[in-house]
């Protein structure tokens, strides 16, 4: 517990009242500092997150996940002394143990960025349609960013303070996942990938990215 006192978990939160309390409670078993960026939720997400002990920063109106992520980064840089920030999805598909291992990896190998990747091992069970969408996104991201990643749209990342300062997301919607890779790559700081297990529950499947969303992501990236 004490060894993660320099780490803040940033959770973009939008209408996840059903699961957010469990996600926050789960994170608190390892990490003391959890901030949820509420992106104008219309359900009881804020109460659930605060009830579970998370700090909640509220967007007055819905802006998109990219905007929430940027607000979280700004918050950690301006109002905490954190050395590492971890971006973590609110829908419960990430594992706290993976986040813990990634922070350890960043510390031990002196890395500025650790990207989670669900394709480095066989733990993650993704359907073929999702696989195609994600692989296409990876390909497009690698084309534009110059980094060679195996997984692009993975919300689990560890970002060291100096690397976080180089992030300024302009894409409010889903294309931010590629934009953040691009901007972290531009900092020229050392990075690595780490295998993570993404758990596709019925809940996360019902909220996940569809094939049509991949079209939106590509169009957003091309017509910046």
């Amino acid at each position, binding site marked *: 517990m004490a060894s993660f006192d320099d780490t803040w978990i940033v959770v973009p939160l939008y209408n996840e009242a059903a699961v957010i309390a469990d996600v926050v409670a789960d994170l608190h078993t390892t990490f003391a*500092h959890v901030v949820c960026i509420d992106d104008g939720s219309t359900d009881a997400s804020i109460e659930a997150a605060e*009830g*579970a002990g998370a700090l909640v920063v509220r967007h*007055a109106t819905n*802006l998109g996940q990219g905007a929430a992520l940027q607000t979280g980064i*700004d*918050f950690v840089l301006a109002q905490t002394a954190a050395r590492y920030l971890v971006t973590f999805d609110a829908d419960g598909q990430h594992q706290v143990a993976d986040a813990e291992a990634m922070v350890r990896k960043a510390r031990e190998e002196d890395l500025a960025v650790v990207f989670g990747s669900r394709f480095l091992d066989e733990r993650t069970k993704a359907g073929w349609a999702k696989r195609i969408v994600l692989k296409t996104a990876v390909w497009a991201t690698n084309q534009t960013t110059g980094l060679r990643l195996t997984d692009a749209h993975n919300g689990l990342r560890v970002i060291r303070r100096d690397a976080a300062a180089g992030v300024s997301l302009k894409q409010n919607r889903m294309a931010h996942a590629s934009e953040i890779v691009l901007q972290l790559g531009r900092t020229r700081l050392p990075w690595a990938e780490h295998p993570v297990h993404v758990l596709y529950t019925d809940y996360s499947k019902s909220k996940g990215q569809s094939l049509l969303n991949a079209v939106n992501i590509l169009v957003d990236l091309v017509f910046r």
Partner: protein
Amino acid sequence: MNEEKIWIQVLLLLGVAVVTVLLTRSTADARHQAVRRVLLALFALVTAAAILFPTILSRIAHTVGVNRGTDLLLYLLVIAFLSFIATTYRRMKGTDRRITELTRELALTEARLERAGLPTAHQEPDGAAHPGLASPPAAAGEQADASSSAEAAPEPPGPVQGPDAS
């Protein structure tokens, strides 16, 4: 020149005059406004000329290879419409960016106030006063959210000047 024609001419001229005045009054920075006013004056003159001497339009159309003056107008209208879409899209993007920045600034300021305001609500003036790692996350969770936001909103100077000693 028959009488019906004079009526439509008067109507059209009035319309052009009204639009010109409305557009001239809109505010923008000085240089853009000057350019816009010059263009507007030109527009008013050309339009008035086209209304008073309809044959001019046809003659211009013929010289650029268009059959009728109305066709020429249609083409110009399409160009004007497309440029309107382009400028409006750019302006909308700018507005979106400003809303994002405004919302973010508001969210971060609220968070700062709430965290600085914690000691007053929990009668613990020292220790938790700094926004940063000093504030225990457990304390944030215990707090009743409704009362804290209601307290922070009406009196922002309180937490800014320093936590209450009571």
